[in-house]
Structures are given as structure tokens and as C-alpha cells.
């Protein structure tokens, strides 16, 4: 999600993990780099570039691999998941992609009842928010326990982005908590996401 105003400079240099890139006094560490003993080293094999976000600050050194970056869900990352099962207390789901990176294998996630929406938490009911099969945009709250990641949809932009009705047609959101089937005009309750343009890429 790099803003376009950033000043990015390509160094036209390819580096490999462990390669010395520069001094900590000259640069920040960006993605794909790490610091050790006052110096910055590459942690990925890829192209080196430096990015200045604020003029006064030091430029951040970044190593980019041309292909998509390897990711696993981390705290605060935005994930797309598919609901697997619901209970009265929580909803289980499989994480399909992190940010814009599709995962080859899913990770288990869990949205607890109290994390479904930000307001009126006590009135939330899981079955009125999600149904198995829904595609949901959520944010990782914490790494959770051995079983699953803890996710939240307590933001306007987060929630169900794709749900199919019993007729098998994708439903159309009619309000922030309701979706309608265009074929049968059946109405169903959901915690609908207010889809943001820059999130669309992630969900697709």
C-alpha cells in the first residue's frame, strides 16, 4: 500500500541474503532487510531500492523480489477468508489470502462473537452475521492459540464481501447488515463490508 508520492530510487543492483547493503546511519531497514551490528543486510534475494517517505528522514532500504512476496498472516494484516462453520460463540474460517497474496495452503482463523462489530457488541449474534461459505474480509487481531488466528471484522470496511443465497446466486448488499438475493429476493442478515476501492484487489 505504498503511496505514490514516495520517492523510490532503484539501485539497479541485485542482492542475496546476507549481503551488506549499507550503514544504519545512512538508511532505515525496509522490507527484505535486517540490521546487524550497525549495518543493514539483505534478507531476500532481489532488487535493491531505497525509498524516502519523508524528506527529512533517512531513506529506507528495501529488497524486492520480483515475484509476489511470501507472507503468513501477521498481527494487523488484512486477510480474506472463507467461513467454515459457525457456533453461537464464534465463527471458524479458513484464511485464503493475506493482503493481496493468495496462500497456497489455508490457515485456520476464528472470529469471536465480540469481535464481529465495533458497536453494540452484546447484541451481536453469529448466525445473523456470517454463514458457512461466505467470503469475509477481516483483520488479524492476534496470533491466537495453537488452533487458530484471532480475526476481527469490527470496522465498517470489514465483513462479508461475497455471499451466495440458497439459489446459488451471489447476493447484493442492501444495507450494512442485510443482503438480498437478486433471483428469489430472499433477504438474509449479514455483517456486510463497506467495500473500499483499494481493498477490492485483495478480495478478488
Amino acid at each position: 500500500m505504498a503511496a505514490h508520492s514516495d520517492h523510490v530510487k532503484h539501485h539497479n543492483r541485485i542482492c542475496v541474503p546476507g549481503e551488506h547493503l549499507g550503514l544504519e546511519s545512512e538508511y532505515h531497514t525496509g522490507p527484505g532487510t535486517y540490521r546487524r551490528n550497525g549495518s543493514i543486510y539483505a534478507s531476500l534475494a532481489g532488487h535493491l531500492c531505497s525509498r524516502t517517505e519523508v524528506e527529512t528522514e533517512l531513506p529506507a532500504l528495501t529488497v524486492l523480489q520480483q515475484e509476489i512476496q511470501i507472507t503468513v498472516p501477521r498481527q494487523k494484516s488484512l486477510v480474506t477468508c472463507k467461513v467454515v462453520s459457525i457456533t453461537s460463540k464464534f465463527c471458524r474460517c479458513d484464511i485464503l489470502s493475506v493482503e493481496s497474496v493468495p496462500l497456497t495452503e489455508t490457515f485456520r482463523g476464528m472470529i469471536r462473537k465480540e469481535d464481529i462489530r465495533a458497536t453494540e457488541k452484546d447484541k451481536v449474534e453469529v448466525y445473523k452475521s456470517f454463514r458457512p461459505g461466505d467470503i469475509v474480509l477481516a483483520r488479524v487481531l492476534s496470533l491466537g492459540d495453537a488452533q487458530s488466528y484471532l480475526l476481527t471484522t469490527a470496522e465498517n470496511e470489514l465483513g462479508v464481501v461475497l455471499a451466495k443465497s440458497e439459489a446459488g446466486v451471489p447476493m447484493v448488499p442492501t444495507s450494512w447488515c442485510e443482503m438480498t438475493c437478486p433471483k428469489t429476493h430472499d433477504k438474509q442478515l449479514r455483517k456486510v463490508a463497506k467495500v473500499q476501492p483499494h481493498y477490492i484487489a485483495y478480495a478478488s
Partner: protein
Amino acid sequence: MPTDTKRIQGPDASQSTFLYKKRANTVQPALLEEGKRQDGRSPLEIRPIFLKAGAVSQAKGSCYMEMKNTKVICAVYGPREVPRRDGFVINGQLRCEFKFATFASEVRHGHLTSHTEKDLALQVQQALEPAVCLHKIPKSQVDIFITVLENDGSVLSAAITCASIAVANAGIEMYDLVIGSSLRQTGETLLLDPTAFDETAESESTDDTQAIVTVGFLPSLKQVSCSVQQGQLQCEDSIKALQQCIDVCERYYQVVYECLKKSVKKLKSPVESPMDEAPAS
């Protein structure tokens, strides 16, 4: 050894003719008269190596490595979720599997993973662990599969180098690369990068020390992540052998570097030179 009942087994009592051939011969010297080895190299000469990152298209990362007749292929999958039974682990984990192809050595290997293979897998895993940023892949595991297609000595060191390139190729963050090398010491003679023959060759006098030393080295951190010594050496010789191996690792580094560089370039424009052979300096 347990047998796999699902496959057709050879006759129970069959033996490779190789065993009988060997028995007929007397002890062969490690060095020929003019100070050359059986394959014509001088003792301190290493075999040219060929590396190709991205040899397995389905895998996240992969590498093929060839040192004359030692051929190793490695594929990396993941990171993926740690199986439920293993409990909560905050850091990432490496899981390594090492397998000789059944036809890799002169004596046929079994289908099932043997103890030796499990041990080699553990060595590779422990060699790579210090180099991979495991905290960047919390709650996840990375699978590394290594297959030896042909075994002509120095397999462990080849597997370490190959696996580290495959992990780097998979785009998993690493503190450093890991490069392996090995040597064989018979008496006073050091044989760098030994072939399978060099590894088993005996010196004439039985009193001589005979040892194989394998090292995994992190070239940027200047640390040793794997060190195996098989056979007897004096303490000082053991360290000398380690140092010698490290020097060889540094010689390999340039080749590994070029290989990874090419693999990155290829991602940008796939029509560049398809083969990247780089003989060791």
C-alpha cells in the same frame, strides 16, 4: 530394514555385484602415484559446480545442484500452517526431508526413509535454522524436500548449499545463505570435495588418521551452522580441517551468488539465458 509391501520387491537375497567386485580388489590408494586422485583431480582441487535455482516449477522455491556425478535436487514448499498436534509455537519451523533416490548409490537404497537419511535431514535442518528468519513466519512451517539423484560423495554438503538456495529462491527471509563443503583426511593428505571413492578409500598404513569433515558455513555472519566429523583426528587437526572447509565454502560463494542473481533476473524477463553454468573459481 522395514520393507514396503505395496511395492514389488526384488528377491530377498539379491546382492549388488558391486559388493563382489569390491571384495576381489585389494586396498586401493586414495592417491595415484603422480599425486592425482582417481578422477584426475589434485588433492586440493574441487569439482566444478553447476547450480540452477527454480528447477521445480510447482514449488515455492527450488534448486538443482550438480558436482560432476553428485546430483541433488531440492524443493521448498510453504510456509504453511503447523499441524494442530504440535501445539503452539510462536516462531516458524523448518521441516526437512532427505531421500536418496533408490538408484542413487552403487548399493540400492530402500524406498522407506532409513535412519541415515533421517540423520542427514536433521543435519540439513539444523544447518539452515540459524540462517532463516524464523520469527518472520510465526506459527508456520516451511517444508524442505531434498532428493539425491546421484551420490558421488559430499552429499551432505551439497544438500546444505542446495537447500539454502532453494529457501532463498522461495522468497523466505534469511539472515544469510548457508554453504556446505567437505573434505577427507587420510594421514597427512587432505582431499577436498571427496567423491564416493575418496570417502571410502583407505590409506596403506592402517595407523593413519582417516576422517571426513563436513561443514555448513554462513558466509556473511562468518559462523558455522553444521559441523560433522566422522573418524579420528587430533583436536588441532580437526580445527584445521574445519578452517580448510570454510575456505572452500568461501570459494563456492561466488557461484551461489551468481546463481541467485540470475534467478532474480529471470523473474523479471524470462527470456534471458536459460542455462547458467558457472564453474568454481
